[in-house]
């Protein structure tokens, strides 16, 4: 059932066995997995079915350095479906090495191993509509698959790994009908969590209070509560509830909001492949199930541990779009179309360079000199992206000159000084707004610098081509667009020790028996992988835990 907070059927006090706050990837997954469980489930969502300016503005806040982090109301959506309504769809699981305590990676180590998530990844893959849980070329395309670069061999990088792409699935549009039909799940839209009240001993949540922007207020009593509000909002809600615990809920050791990670990403250098263009297959492949897959360079676990660097992946990429010197009609068409491309996808089109009228004219000239390429590309984007339900994931340009750049995505080390805190300003519901102070550390620069250097050496050693870049530009390029947008990780980390973590291995807040967190806020480290698939897998694991807990109770 789906109600609006304004519905008369939504009384002053609602009761449920499980109350989930936030209907994004985590919250919807939890609710879906509890359908038919016999448990009464209440799912509170701040937004409505569509984006609403007033609701979205509740996410507004400030950032310490605007060059390093996008405004807090960007890259996340406060509506039914959450940020799955705008995500890019890249899916990949965390690697085994990501869960290890690594001496060279400060504050690393999960209290669980990858094996405890493995049973949930296949179903997470299906929920994300990314096909079967198979992340190597061999598993997906069979032993005779065509490699990304023929003849490339490396002891440090695998090119057998791939990433899979969701449609990208909007969880509200895709699964809303199942929640609507579920007898044991009630979804309440326009219900903003405003207060978490603990019992007298401050060891259990007694009730939470919610309010719509037009003033309809109600309370929820439940046996168990789950905050599934994303990596930034979860920290804000914990910190903002200071009435009974002065530092905020679960924050007696000043951990909430710290260790804030995104990913380090950028585009670098020039890769010239030797031999015929047919040697390179860096684009998307369709699996039997019709899922887009893409090969990539993945830094081996053994190399990471040997060199003491974080996780890293990279892909062959087209030249920088903003620079018309590429003389590519398709890229220039994309540049010219940037006013109609959403902010979250256009950031790299805007770049940080000043593009004047002369640049625009050169882009126009590029389009005019390659009209067939531009027209074919436009048709492809309309047919395979705009009109398709399974969208072509990104721009792929096959270089006639065998010239590429390197697009990388790297792990960021946990850093307690990188944090989100509360601002002085308050939102219309009276909650303090958020302030983001994202920072990267020397370890992060080392991870990218060493990985890129290794890859350049391996290109040279394999004699398949040459990778040229300016080592002095690595740090600049990895922060050129700031923290990777939309990946909000680590602000309420999982751990065994309450002095250095917020939740235990079951995602339960250490000091509050019936309060759980679901989402990337709980990840102790960031991996190279995009977080959504692991968010969904962890949510499925939490759903099983809750079912078991309540059955035993």
């Amino acid at each position: 059932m789906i109600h609006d907070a304004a519905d008369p059927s939504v009384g002053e006090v609602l009761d449920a066995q499980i109350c989930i706050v936030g209907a994004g990837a985590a919250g919807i997954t939890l609710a879906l997995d509890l359908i038919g469980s016999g448990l009464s489930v209440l799912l509170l969502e701040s937004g409505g079915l569509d984006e609403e300016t007033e609701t979205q503005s509740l996410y507004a806040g400030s950032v310490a350095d605007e060059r390093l982090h996008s405004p807090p109301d960007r890259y996340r959506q406060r509506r039914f479906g959450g940020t799955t309504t705008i995500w890019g769809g890249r899916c990949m699981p965390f690697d085994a090495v990501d869960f290890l305590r690594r001496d060279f990676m400060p504050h690393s180590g999960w209290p669980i191993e990858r094996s405890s998530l493995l049973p949930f990844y296949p179903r997470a893959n299906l929920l994300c509509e990314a096909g079967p849980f198979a992340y190597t070329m061999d598993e997906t395309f069979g032993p005779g698959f065509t490699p990304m670069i023929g003849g490339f061999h490396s002891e440090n990088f695998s090119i057998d790994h791939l990433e899979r792409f969701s449609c990208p699935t909007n969880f509200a549009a895709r699964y809303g009908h199942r929640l609507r039909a579920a007898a044991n799940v009630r979804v309440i839209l326009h219900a903003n969590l405003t207060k978490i009240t603990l019992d007298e001993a401050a060891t259990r949540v007694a009730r939470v209070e919610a309010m719509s922007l037009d003033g309809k207020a109600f309370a929820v009593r439940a046996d168990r509560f789950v905050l599934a509000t994303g990596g930034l909002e979860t920290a804000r809600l914990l910190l903002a509830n200071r009435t009974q615990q002065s530092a905020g809920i679960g924050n007696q050791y000043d951990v909430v909001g710290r260790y804030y990670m995104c990913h380090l990403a950028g585009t670098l250098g020039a890769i010239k492949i030797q031999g015929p263009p047919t040697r390179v297959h860096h684009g998307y492949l369709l699996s039997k199930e019709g899922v887009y897959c893409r090969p990539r360079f993945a830094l081996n676990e053994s190399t990471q541990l040997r060199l003491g660097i974080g996780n890293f992946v990279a892909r062959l990429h087209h030249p920088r779009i903003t620079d018309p010197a590429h003389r590519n009609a398709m890229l220039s068409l994309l540049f010219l179309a940037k006013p109609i491309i959403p902010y979250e996808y256009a950031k790299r089109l805007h770049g940080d360079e000043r593009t004047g009228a002369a640049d625009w004219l050169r882009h126009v000239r590029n389009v005019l000199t390659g009209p067939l390429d531009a027209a074919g590309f436009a048709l492809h984007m309309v047919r395979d992206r705009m009109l398709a339900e399974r969208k072509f994931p990104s721009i792929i340009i096959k270089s006639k000159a065998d010239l590429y750049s390197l697009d990388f995505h790297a792990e960021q080390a946990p850093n307690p000084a990188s944090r989100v805190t509360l601002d002085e300003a308050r939102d219309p519901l009276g909650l303090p707004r958020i302030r983001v102070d994202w920072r990267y550390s020397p370890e992060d620069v080392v991870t990218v610098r060493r990985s890129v250097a290794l890859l350049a050496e391996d290109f040279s050693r394999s004699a398949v081509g040459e990778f040229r870049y300016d080592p002095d530009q690595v740090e600049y390029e990895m922060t050129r667009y700031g923290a990777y947008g939309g990946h909000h990780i680590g602000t309420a980390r999982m751990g065994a020790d309450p002095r250095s973590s917020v939740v235990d291995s079951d995602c339960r807040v250490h000091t509050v028996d019936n309060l759980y967190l679901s989402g990337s806020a709980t990840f102790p480290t960031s991996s190279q992988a995009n977080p959504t698939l692991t968010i969904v897998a962890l949510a499925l694991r939490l759903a099983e835990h809750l079912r078991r807990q309540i059955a035993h109770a």
Partner: protein
Amino acid sequence: MSRQKILVVGADSFVGSRVVRALQAGDWAEPITATFDAPALRAGLSTVDGVVNAVMGSPQRIRAAATALYGSADALHTSARIVHLGSMTVYGKDDGVFAETAALPEFLEPYAAAHAAAEALAGARPNAVILRPGCEYGPGCPQWSLRVADWLRARRIGDLGAGGDGYCNLIYIDDLVAAVLMSLRSPAAAGVFNLALPDPPTWNEYLISFGIALGAVPIRRMTRRRWKIETRLLAPPLKIAELAQGRMGLSNRSLPEAIPPSFQQLCTQAIRLDVSRAEQVLQMRWTPLDAGIAATAQWVREVRGG
């Protein structure tokens, strides 16, 4: 020991023909076939030990067969075991898990209502067993195998997204035939039995697995727009053209078969059959889905080529 005589009514149907073949292959029974006009039925019924009603088709045909068969049985006061092949459609369009004891909806669409009426007539007979299969599939199956395979190979269906989240209550044809034979032979068999995989796939899972087995890859993700056009806009004229061709005596293979709106609705229905009674009483064991799909795809390749 003499072989039992089993009258199979509707032996021209897919399931009926497979029942006849199975009876012929065994050593305990001899199948007798009959059309369902009353004199032929009376002649047949007077000498047989068991009856299988496997009549399929239009609502009128289902009703007429049941009326004639069970009316004739009444007239002859026969006590022969009757196995009636019904349909899960009698549970209607609601979602949920349905056991045989579930009350049937008062209002049903014509096809389901015909099955419900036929079941009621059969159930009034002593010694009757009513089987309610889900979607039968397997080699030789025109409706849920060959037709679906044609749609998949033409990329007219595939991954239906939210439109394919309903449960596909498949039953492999060999399992259905086994249930019929067990119902004829087992003295304990009585009443109604649901028949389908106990853990059915969703329609999306079935369509994707079947498409891959057929080599109809990559599976196409249908947009809601395209799916509506196929089932709402194209289906009526295709059906009319098919009927017109039939009346003119032309081959109907020259036109693609319509994907009816009822199929679209079925693919969204979250209905599951509780088959525990069939497992306990009829000792049903189910052919694994992977094996069933592989055998079916092999048969489709033989029939259609490729």
